[in-house]
């Protein structure tokens, strides 16, 4: 059984994704414990500089080069990684729990007949076992899962759940050329599609009044807009509000929406699941209004009111008017 920890480097449109450095940091810490090596794996075509940039984060950088890997396509990725895994038999492969892993990790694990835990916020190794921490039930409960990694395993980690540290290593670069026996013509990447830009860029706003599921009805947005106007902020939201069609996608805060860093973020009726917190936790001052005292948003906020938002919001609007 190898003790090596492999980490899949993720890149898009010529840029390394931040999550890559988070998982490499974790891989490095774990490889120290297991006595194995940290191996960064990058797949692509003509990205020598990106592969090169990983050298300080790993003992070894394996760069699998092929034209078909120019854009992420789960079937080509799966073929290449399966072959690498079978040849080198790492103890564990770590990925970000991202749009790449969603498409790739479960089917790769099945193909390799190895266990996989997806979407964890942390994990540890104890002998040949891997134990994860997963944030479940919308962030209100943690779950610990385990698997035996004797024959290898895969873990995917939510982006933003671990710190990314400077590398400090000086790994060697190994370029591996790979040829595919099959063409996957039944599934073809066509193009990237940018989301429609909104009339308001919430990433530039200094004050954001953000709403979630607790707002209940579309009509109640007017009350929030009034509060935002009196404070001089813009209205943003969590995912359910966009799903319901009450605000455009450009107003969504969270990992699948925008990441914001305003001076003030007031979260109203937002429970605060992990994906939302990733989009706003670096705001300077965070105020949460929610009737559920156990809502995870209070863990990210500086100040909180546990009460019915329909009573608090009008009162707050009045108080703001008085003090302005």
């Amino acid at each position, binding site marked *: 059984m190898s003790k090596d920890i492999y980490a899949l480097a993720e890149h*898009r449109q010529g840029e390394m*994704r931040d999550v890559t450095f988070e998982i490499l940091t974790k891989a490095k810490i774990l490889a120290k414990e297991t006595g194995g090596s940290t191996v960064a794996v990058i797949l692509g075509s003509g990205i020598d500089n990106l592969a090169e940039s990983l050298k300080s984060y790993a003992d070894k950088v394996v760069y699998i080069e092929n034209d078909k890997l120019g854009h992420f396509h789960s079937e080509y990725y799966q073929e290449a990684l399966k072959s690498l895994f079978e040849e080198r038999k790492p103890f564990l492969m770590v990925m970000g729990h*991202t749009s790449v892993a*969603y*498409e790739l990790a*479960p*089917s790769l*694990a*099945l193909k390799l007949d*190895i266990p996989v835990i*997806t979407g964890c916020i942390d994990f540890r190794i104890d002998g040949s076992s891997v*134990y994860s921490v997963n*944030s*479940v*039930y*919308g962030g*209100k*409960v943690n*779950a*610990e*899962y385990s*698997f*035996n990694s004797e024959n290898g395993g895969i873990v995917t980690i939510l982006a933003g759940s671990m710190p990314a540290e400077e590398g400090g290593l000086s790994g060697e670069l190994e370029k591996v050329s790979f040829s595919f026996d099959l063409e996957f013509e*039944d*599934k*073809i*990447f066509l*193009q*990237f*599609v*940018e989301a429609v830009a909104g009339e308001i860029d919430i990433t530039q706003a200094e004050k954001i009044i953000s709403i979630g*599921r607790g707002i209940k009805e579309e009509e109640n947005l007017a009350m929030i807009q009034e509060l935002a106007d009196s*404070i001089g902020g813009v209205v943003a939201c969590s995912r359910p509000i966009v*799903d319901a*069609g009450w605000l455009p996608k450009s107003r*969504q805060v969270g*990992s*699948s929406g925008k*990441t914001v860093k305003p001076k*003030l973020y007031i979260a109203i009726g937002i429970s605060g699941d992990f994906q939302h917190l990733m989009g706003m936790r670096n705001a300077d*001052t965070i*105020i949460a209004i929610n009737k*559920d005292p*156990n809502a*995870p948003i*209070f*863990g*990210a906020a*500086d*100040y*909180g*009111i546990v*009460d*019915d938002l329909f*009573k*608090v919001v009008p*009162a707050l609007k009045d*108080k*703001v008017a008085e*003090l302005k």
Partner: protein
Amino acid sequence: MDSIVCIKRVPETAEATLKIDSSNLKLDEENLVFSINEADNYALEQALLLQEEFGGDVTIVSVGPEKTDEIIRMALAKGATSGIRITPSNLEELDPASIAKLIADEVKDLDYDLIFTGCIASDDGFSQVGVTLAEMLGINHISMAVEMEAEEETAKINRELEGGLMEKFEVKYPAVITIQTGINEPRYASILGIKRAGSKELKVVEASEAKAEKVKLEKIYFPPPGKMAEIFEGGPAETSGKVAEVLKTKGLL
């Protein structure tokens, strides 16, 4: 065009006060309300929209306890053709791969063009069953679909990436598509639909002990209290006054 929709019964936890069962392996279900997993509801709607456009059957499949019949009946009331409930004796020991295997065994001989399911379950958040199922059936998959243009034999699908970006794929049927919330507007069942649902076929598969796969749930627990907001006490006038003062002090008014 025939579709299969895989749905899951989950507790509504967003606004509920949760308790953990003494086994430390599951929630105390006593005061919880269960419903169809949110993303699966959008997956169901996507299948119903294609049924309206192209005709064909929509078959609902769900792995769960007997009460799962409630969400299957609701899907039938919205227009699905028939349902299959799979209930293994060791349900709580099963990991996503085991669940996918149960579904694969049941649907592999059915006629279908597309299999839909939600891209994430609101309870465990694994996002594995759809993609694993596709691999077991040896068919294509696209995960995190946020836009879909379907034709008779292929579909163009926008997948959701991080930060609001999407990527467009073209995929040939048969395929598994995992659906992200917001792709459509899920309908409500009509009274007539609810009446008709009672007479639609709901097959029950009492699977004997299914093979528990490789991943084991050790325990669930409440997250250790970390940094916590300073909570203002009092009625709305008082608490909102304190917030307004914070804003003024910090120069945020």
